[in-house]
């Protein structure tokens, strides 16, 4: 086996030579430019042999150890390589779910397309009345011969405007409620009857969409896991999201924290003193640095544990919760240090990037489970406190 240092320098050299110079384009209404950018980058990764670093080799991945993955992501963040947000669902959600619960045909068709950047995936879990309360899914799937006919809508679907496939969870048993009677489907986003409405986000990009289904026919062979077993399949999907899939953004936050400290060293206040000489600024930066370091250690710790289990446990929720909140804290302080300059949003690139990231950071404590839901999960699954909906039941 190659030494760690040799591996690190190989990764660093490759990234230096291959990370695109041009910044990632904004996510527009049609998402076209961003999608093309991501496909190109994923293809570059694939051709360089760096796609699917955490995928098993039998599926064309690199099957890196946790340590190698961490080194990869450290270097990735250091090189300021493209944000993989738009590819996240395919690479870290759909693919692991297919590997775990999919049929051989499903795996054979989809996995290599995801890996090569040929297929972009989006998620189809949340509905307007099933966000935090995911089990309240209403979107209906009716089995007709060898198809499922889907009617209803989904919302908060990231990048649906450009996606090729969707992991779609619908209620296939009309008599069921809550966790029962759901099914996890592979939905071709070009199927007749699908309408996508992009939603403008507070940072000026179209991060999310609403998706409407009007008699959309999906072959039964696109069910992943068994019909009616969608909840279990979805939980496996989400467990991946809460586990090691956050290493990339985790490493990026460390870099951001360091950049902010450098900014405070060089930017001057009205009297010409570096901002960092202000004791309150220094205390808060010191605090952030300690917390960001601790978070990274928690990621390493969690990765070390995940290595011994197939599906990460609820501890991954710790990382997800803290990551989202700490990111907001970092950008809040950044806005404060920018002072009046924080009003000049500009083109969201270069100097204005922290302003853009500041606005975008509001999504972190909402998307993929609000901070409140994450705290419920920690309290109920790890500390075994009574369920929160016990209150609602008694009141009702």
């Amino acid at each position, binding site marked *: 086996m190659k030494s*760690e240092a040799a591996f690190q320098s190989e990764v660093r050299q490759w990234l230096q030579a291959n990370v695109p110079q041009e910044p990632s384009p904004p996510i527009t209404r049609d998402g076209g430019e961003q999608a093309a950018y991501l496909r190109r980058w994923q293809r570059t990764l694939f051709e360089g042999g760096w796609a699917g670093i955490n995928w098993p080799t039998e599926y064309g991945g690199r099957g890196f150890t946790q*340590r190698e993955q*961490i*080194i990869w992501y*450290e270097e990735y*963040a*250091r090189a300021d390589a493209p944000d993989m947000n738009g590819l996240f669902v395919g690479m870290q959600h759909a693919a692991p779910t297919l590997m775990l619960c999919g049929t051989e045909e499903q795996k054979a068709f989809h996995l290599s397309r995801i890996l090569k950047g040929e297929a972009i995936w989006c998620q189809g879990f949340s509905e307007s009345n099933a966000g935090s309360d995911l089990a309240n899914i209403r979107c209906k799937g009716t089995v007709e011969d060898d198809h499922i006919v889907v009617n209803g809508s989904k919302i908060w679907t990231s990048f649906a405007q450009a996606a090729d496939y969707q992991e779609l969870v619908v209620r296939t048993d009309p008599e069921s409620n809550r966790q029962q009677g759901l099914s996890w489907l592979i939905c071709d986003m070009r199927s007749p009857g699908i309408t996508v409405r992009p939603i403008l986000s507070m940072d000026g990009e179209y991060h999310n969409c609403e998706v409407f289904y009007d008699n959309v026919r999906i072959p039964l062979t696109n069910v992943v896991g068994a019909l009616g077993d969608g909840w279990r399949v979805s939980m496996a999907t989400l467990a991946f999201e809460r586990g090691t899939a956050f290493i990339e953004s985790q*490493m990026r936050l*460390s*870099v951001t*924290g*360091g*950049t902010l*400290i450098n900014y405070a060293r060089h930017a001057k206040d009205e009297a010409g003193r570096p901002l*960092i000489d202000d004791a309150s600024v*220094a*205390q808060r*930066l*010191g*605090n952030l*640095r*300690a*917390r960001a*370091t*601790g*978070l*990274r*250690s*928690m990621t*390493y*710790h*969690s990765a*070390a*544990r995940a290595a011994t289990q197939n599906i990460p446990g609820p*501890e991954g929720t*710790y990382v997800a*919760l*803290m990551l989202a909140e700490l990111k907001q804290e970092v950008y809040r302080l950044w806005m404060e240090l920018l002072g009046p300059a924080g009003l000049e949003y500009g083109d969201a690139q270069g100097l204005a990037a922290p302003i853009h990231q500041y606005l975008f950071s509001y999504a972190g404590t909402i998307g993929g489970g609000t901070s*409140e839901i*994450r*705290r*419920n999960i*920690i*309290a*109920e699954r*790890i*500390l*075994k*406190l*009574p*369920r*929160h909906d*016990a*209150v609602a039941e*008694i009141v009702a």
Partner: protein
Amino acid sequence: MTFVTPTPDQWSLCRGMTEFLAGNFPLSRFRSKQISEKDCWQDLASMGVFGISLPEADGGMGQSLLDDVLACREAGRYLISPALVGSILAVKIAAQTDKITLRDALISGLSRAGIATTAVNGDVQIVDGDSDGIFLLVQADRIAVVNSDASNRPTLRCIDDAVQLDKTEIRALAVDWLENKSLALAAHLLLAAMLCGLLETICEMAADYARTRVQFGRPIGAFQAIKHGCADIALATELCWSQTLQAASALQSDAADAEFHVLTAKLLAGDEALKAARFNIQVHGGMGFTDEVDAHRMLKRVHVLHQLLGDPRLVRRRLLDLSVEII
């Protein structure tokens, strides 16, 4: 990047220690006032805790720094005196400087070494320095066991009445400094480990009460205001323990960023334990404010551990000054 986690063997040693502490130093000792920790110091010594990572040739158990960390974490759960850290380090220093009598007295628990805060205006405060006047002093990269005359030092009233506090002018002491950054950092690390153990206890105590205390017809842990505070303590416990393991890994392998990770571990654990201890009092409501429930003891012990060896205000500044690679 190295990240060492305890092996199954290390964990099982650790469980032995927990059983021993639960039997001999239960938290109820504070209320019954039947057990004086100082009088039982030799019982602790019988577990070999003062020489865990000392080479066998020096009378120790020849284990690793991580084993010290695990032991201190367990001791932290039971609010064992920070003189444990003072004594573990004092044993190492005594061994390195060939003070065999002192070394053996400390290992056997006949003597114990207190531990000091950083000097302010030339004074240091000493926690659990006994009448024989032995205590650990750490200043940046150097460390010393001070063997002073404590007979005429007045005992001060400490915020935490389970420990003894006194104060002395640093000038009046003959300090035989040992330049040894690793040992100085190990002292910080072991205090961080004690805080991690304390966090575990606080977390269990708050969650236990939230599960069992019933108001408005349901356990108060069903209310999100309580539940979310408990979740934050659980997160803090995992966060601080992870950072402490990271710091132990860095220090054990003599990594360039060892100081950064160790100071971060100590600062984080102190800050987070303080928040957790505050919330634990709040969860207990009126009883949390009384002397009859241990919540206040945990808060007070956190204050003591947080201040030992380094004022957190200065540590935060130091973290910015330490140049580490961004990643």
